[in-house]
């Protein structure tokens, strides 16, 4: 039997506001437990939520970016469940009237573009954290995260492989950072994902029973979790079994998923509109203001890079994958005056390679686009060769000096003086009569030997074009 995988993702992204969604407490990560939880976050008797307007603006920004319907009126609802890190005994979320309606995200998969539907995106508050270590059999509660704004982005079940799911997740991750509505930090839990996974015989229209994989917090784990879950489901069905609708947890250490709770045990969340909060009205003015404020989006930037700089799709994809990287590239083209191809090669090759090695982000690059531009200019005007340039680049990684200063201090300037090159070549011809003989007898390949010897003798500084010209002249004689 041929099976088709069906995947839908629910992505929770923390919005990068300074204060919480319903209180004035700070949202910064990593503070001492319970130092960033005010009376509202603690759920004290009598406190009331007040909506942070930045949160609305960010959700609208996301909605417009995925070309979704942004609701004129959206409503906050209470999702009721008891848990120690949910201080009110309910979470304020949105149910029937989410702020962002149907939209979409295009992904590139095997060279083709595929459109993934986005069902909705809604605002809600994050819970606190239960801490089980160092409490001697008890549980500690840290409510610092309680009330941190989340945008939950729910996709249609449009993905048919872990690869597609990852591609979609990466695109959303890239977008929220582009829009500057989330820092996208997965280690700190700013970007988390639940996956709904089912299988069905290829060609069948109706969906199979799905399981929900909870809180898988890296691209790698999402891929592994989906693949292992698909295998599990196929095995069950092929052995005549049935899939139970349930929530499953992915265990990265054992690379397996295991049951958390079945549908029967699932909570009835008893959603109802939160009477403490008014409906959120999105005005035309706000929509227009946010629209005017939208940055160039990754897809548009990619297309522009291909058209404007004649880059190939892959390079354009890499360069537009982050706003900072794209900016670096464009600034480099401008600062160096060099052709885009050269600039993109240096950025995607040498620079990203070096940053990768040091575990740095483009924003932390030790070489600014100005300094790199200076280096590229010296290649263009023949001051140094491409090979010497790599040497200068290495030196620049560990110093603050300009390319010019390094070339000067290390004496790396190319020798273009033909008299000096002639002197070197004359000596080499004199020292290697055998090779001259071979060359003259028609073995053209020996030419390379002379070039190599000349470059070696000049410590790589002789201008290669000049060397070729002079060698050809002298050997012919």
């Amino acid at each position: 039997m041929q099976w088709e995988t069906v995947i839908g993702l629910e992505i929770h992204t923390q919005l990068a506001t300074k204060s919480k969604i319903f209180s004035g407490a700070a949202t910064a990560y990593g503070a001492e437990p319970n130092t960033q939880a005010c009376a509202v976050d603690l759920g004290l008797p009598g406190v009331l939520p007040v909506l942070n307007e930045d949160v609305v603006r960010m959700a609208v920004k996301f909605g417009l970016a995925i070309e979704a319907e942004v609701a004129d009126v959206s409503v906050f609802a209470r999702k009721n469940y008891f848990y120690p890190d949910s201080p009110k005994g309910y979470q304020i979320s949105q149910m029937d009237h989410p702020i962002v309606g149907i939209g979409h995200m295009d992904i590139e998969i095997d060279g083709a573009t595929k459109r993934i539907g986005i069902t909705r995106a809604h605002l809600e508050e994050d819970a606190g954290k239960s801490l089980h270590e160092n409490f001697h059999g008890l549980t500690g509660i840290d409510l610092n995260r309680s009330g941190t704004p989340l945008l939950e982005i729910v996709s249609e079940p449009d993905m048919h492989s872990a690869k597609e799911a990852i591609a979609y997740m990466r695109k959303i991750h890239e977008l929220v950072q582009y829009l500057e509505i989330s820092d996208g930090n997965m280690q700190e839990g700013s970007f988390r994902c639940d996956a709904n996974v089912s299988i069905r015989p290829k060609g069948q229209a109706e969906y199979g029973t799905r399981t929900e994989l909870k809180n898988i917090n890296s691209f790698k784990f999402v891929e592994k979790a989906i693949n292992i879950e698909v295998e599990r489901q196929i095995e069950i069905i092929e052995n005549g079994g049935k899939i139970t609708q349930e929530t499953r947890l992915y265990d990265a250490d054992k690379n397996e998923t295991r049951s958390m709770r079945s549908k029967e045990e699932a909570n009835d969340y008893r959603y109802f509109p939160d009477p403490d909060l008014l409906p959120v009205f999105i005005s035309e003015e706000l929509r227009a203001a946010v629209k005017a404020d939208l940055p160039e989006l990754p897809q548009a930037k990619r297309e522009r890079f291909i058209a404007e700089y004649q880059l190939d799709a892959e390079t354009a994809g890499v360069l537009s994958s982050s706003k900072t990287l794209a900016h670096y590239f464009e600034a480099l083209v401008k600062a160096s005056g060099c052709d885009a191809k050269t600039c993109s090669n240096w950025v995607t090759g040498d620079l990203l390679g070096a940053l990768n090695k040091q575990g740095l982000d483009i924003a932390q690059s030790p070489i600014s686009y100005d300094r790199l531009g200076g280096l590229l200019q010296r290649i263009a005007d023949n001051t140094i060769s491409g090979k010497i340039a790599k040497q200068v680049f290495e030196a620049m990684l560990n110093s603050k000096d300009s390319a010019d200063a390094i070339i000067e201090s290390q004496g790396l300037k190319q020798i273009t003086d033909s008299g000096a090159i002639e002197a070197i070549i004359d000596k080499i011809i004199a020292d290697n009569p055998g090779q001259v003989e071979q060359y003259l007898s028609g073995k053209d390949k020996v030419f390379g030997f002379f070039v190599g010897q000349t470059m070696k003798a000049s410590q790589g500084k002789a201008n290669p074009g000049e060397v070729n010209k002079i060698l050809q002249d002298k050997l012919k004689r």
Partner: protein
Amino acid sequence: MHTKTIAQLAQGLRAGDYSSQELTEAYLARIKQHQDLNSFITVTEHQAIAAAKQADAMLAAGDAPFLTGVPMAHKDIFCTLGVKTSCGSKMLDKFISPYNATVVEKFNAAGAVSLGKLNMDEFAMGSSNETSFYGAVKNPWATDCVPGGSSGGSAAAVAARLIPGATGTDTGGSIRQPAALCSITGLKPTYGRVSRYGMIAYASSLDQGGPMAQTAEDAALMLQAMAGFDPKDSTSVDCAVPDYSADLNNSLAGLKIGLPKEFFDEALNSEMAATIEAAINEYKKMGAEIIEVSMPNLKLAIPAYYVIAPAECSANLSRLDGVRYGHRCENPVDLNDLYIRSRGEAFGTEVKRRILIGTYALSEGYYDAYYIKAQKIRRLISDDFNKALEQVDVIMGPVSPSPTFGIGEKTDDPIEMYLADIYTIAINLAGLPAMSIPAGFIDNKPVGLQIIGNYFNEAKLLNVAHQYQQVTDWHQQTPKGFE
């Protein structure tokens, strides 16, 4: 001194007839003397004396705000910094609030001196003050009878002249009904007029704080201190607060009073009907015009209320889980045990009943049939009132179908207790302002007249109430033993 109104006391303080400390000590002595009424849960003697001394210093310096030095007390539903805020429940018996409710802050800013926290039905769920963890409150007019609820402590204390004024809250009649049963003046403002921040929520879309005092004039002074937009309460409304004392003396000639025929049907006992009629006759004498109006959906108010209020309370009370504060059971074996025993031990029967009703009404498969339906009814009821208020300036009627009843008399029949709120609940569903003012007695038991006005027109209600109090003296009568 204790029979004086807030207006008179404020004036006497300014004139130097007595100091705030003298007043405070005198009232504290009365509270102690009549503690068998059980109207207070907490008396904050030391804080009160300290605040009174500060008030005296401010009065001596001049330029003190208008309530400076006047004693009062808060219903124990308002969070008070550093003071136990129990909400009438074992659950919060040991809860010392780390912050002040906005209403408390506002009274502090106006210079009032709080003497303590007043008894109430547990989490404001009740119409007789019998559900309080701290025991029933006695009605000073008949000490074997209830004072009404849920603001029963507030009403009894003001009626017994243990304090000149108190805060109350009204979700389905909890200011107006005890005001009526204790012969005092109570005002439930328009929903959104007074901040709910720090007022422990029962049913968030219905709860509203308001003043309880001897006279409409005093209620105006108290409302002046309480009302206003609060950025901490998204449901408070940002509209200007008028001078509530300015229109008190306006003539009522030509006032159009609507009488809903559904308020005067067979459910109303004949003596009550006669008393209300007599009160309305006073208005006729003042030149008011009587117009019959209709509230066809009134009979749906109680069922709708007993879906919406429990639904909201079932969520509002979820935070009382024994995890961070409040009652926690001994030696819980696991999380479920902690929840079940902490809540099971600390909530009273009526609270549990309403949490269960609300949880049921919101459950999957029942939500549309109950909650959504109730919200539709709510809209119909609002429409009834809005239609009537297009024709008339105010609507009048009874507050409660009968006067006060014996302690323990109705506790076995919650439905009968619920039905007694028929005249008040609809007003909360509509979000309108309404008052109860003393309008006479039946067998020495007080009767209240309800006056309902248009949104944010509390000034009109106060004017209408004040004019009645200029021609009657029901509000000046004090119960026997408390003169």
